[in-house]
């Protein structure tokens, strides 16, 4: 497991500056939730941490090592950081088991036979044992998202990023995916979540960070941030959600 420190991270797309100096620390085994209005840069930030987008300025420290240096091999970094997307992004031409084995097969050069016991355990742990040999289009949204989580976990990442992983799900399927997150938290996985599920953030997060205007405007334990937000903007955001 690992720590993650963002120091003054800036990122723009052309003229739109999405991150204007983001500071955020995630301790070993911590679950941190990013909240903020649509377009506030939550997804962009997660993609930057995973090096899917290069940052303009600042540092991203994984266990104290700056992974944002452009002279670093991104493959070596990405295998240490798992990410799960809102839209699952499973590979449609492979069974769930093949989806999960592809990374370890190619990156760690392990054979299917060697991997099978390990991934079977993973599938069982998340209630997917009878879905291993199904194709993504034969799975419900909730099952697909859990397979996507298993796929990321199979790389044995030190930290996991989740980008609104329940937003594309029917309401009755959200619970099963959130259960997976609770399970991971109990196992001590370091996690960063972008989420609109405020009740989940309140219940499960160690800390919540409110993104506004390209910065972390306010952060703190969920009880404090949700009950007594210090900032006017945070209060406005939360009450807008409460009304919705």
């Amino acid at each position, binding site marked *: 497991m690992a720590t993650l420190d963002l120091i003054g991270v800036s990122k723009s797309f052309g003229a739109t500056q999405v991150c204007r100096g983001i500071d955020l620390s995630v301790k070993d085994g911590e679950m941190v939730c990013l909240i903020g209005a649509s377009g506030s840069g939550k997804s962009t930030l997660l*993609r930057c941490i*995973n090096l*899917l987008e290069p940052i303009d300025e600042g540092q991203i420290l994984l266990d104290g090592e700056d992974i944002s240096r452009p002279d670093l091999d*991104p*493959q*070596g970094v*990405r*295998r240490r*950081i*798992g*990410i799960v*997307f809102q*839209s699952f*992004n*499973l*590979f*449609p*031409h492979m069974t769930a088991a093949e989806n999960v084995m*592809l*990374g370890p097969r*190619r*990156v760690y050069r392990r054979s299917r036979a060697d991997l099978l016991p390990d991934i079977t355990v993973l599938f069982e742990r998340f209630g997917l044992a009878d879905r291993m040999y199904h194709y993504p289009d034969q799975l419900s949204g909730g099952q697909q998202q859990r397979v996507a989580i298993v*796929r*990321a976990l199979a*790389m044995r990442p030190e930290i996991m990023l989740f980008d609104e992983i329940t937003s594309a799900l029917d309401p009755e399927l959200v619970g099963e995916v959130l259960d997976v997150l609770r399970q991971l938290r109990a196992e001590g996985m370091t996690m960063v979540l972008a989420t609109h599920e405020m009740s989940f953030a309140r219940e499960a997060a160690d800390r919540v960070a409110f993104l506004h205007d390209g910065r972390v405007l306010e952060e703190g334990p969920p009880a404090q941030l949700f009950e007594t937000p210090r900032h006017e903007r945070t209060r406005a955001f939360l009450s807008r959600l409460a009304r919705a």
Partner: protein
Amino acid sequence: MALLENGGAVPAGPLTKADRDAYARRLRNRSLAVAGGSTAAVLIAIVVLVPLAPGWEAVRRSFFSGEVFVETFPTLLRAFMLDVAIFLWCAPAIAVVGLAIALCRDVRNPALYPLRLFGALYTDIFRGIPVILVVYLVGFGIPGLGLPRPWNSPYIWGSLALILTYSAYVAEIFRSGIESVHQSQRNAALSLGLSDRDTMRYVVLPQAIRRVVPANMNMLIALQKDVALLSFIGPVEIFRQAGVYKSLLANFTPYVVAACIFLAITIPATRYADYLMARQARERS
């Protein structure tokens, strides 16, 4: 409210399933009758009217002679096997070269920039020249270098001409397939720590190739027909053989025979390609 009259009357009051089924059946029978009737009318018109044309008798004798048909059919069919053979060795080569060219155009490594340039030039050049010209230039040009047997064979160089031209088109088809795979699939693969190469090989290409199967089927059908162009540089395949018969018998029926033989292959293949295309459209919606 206005009533539809196409399917006849239905009983008043609440309808049973049998009533509704009967109505649907009447509607269907009516459509069948109308379609059958109009088709029959057109056919009858053709059969009755065309023979009334003043030159019909002459055309019938020189294009539709049953005797010549029966006489030339076996040889033409055998000559067609040569077309099939040429097709069979060209098609895999085209798939391989086409895919290689498509991948050349996608390389990001600056050291391999020449490959990119080559890919772009290749597709521009060979899509820009008529097939028959490539067949002439390669088919006459290269053996003209005075190569020893068997390297002066028109089969080799004619096939090469087809491979060069068709792989340019097929490369573009593969490339459009590669581009149609959503960026999020690449990202998902990269985020696992896969290299660009593995991402292409295990995630992008398998999806891309599947998507372009119907388009490539259409290329295969076109290729099967264009094999006949090799007749201009020597091989006695079906088109050339038909020409030989035409001169021999002073009759055009052999060409009609050749056309029928082509159609026997291309119509089912075209239908199959359409079916694949329709199935894919359904799957994606």
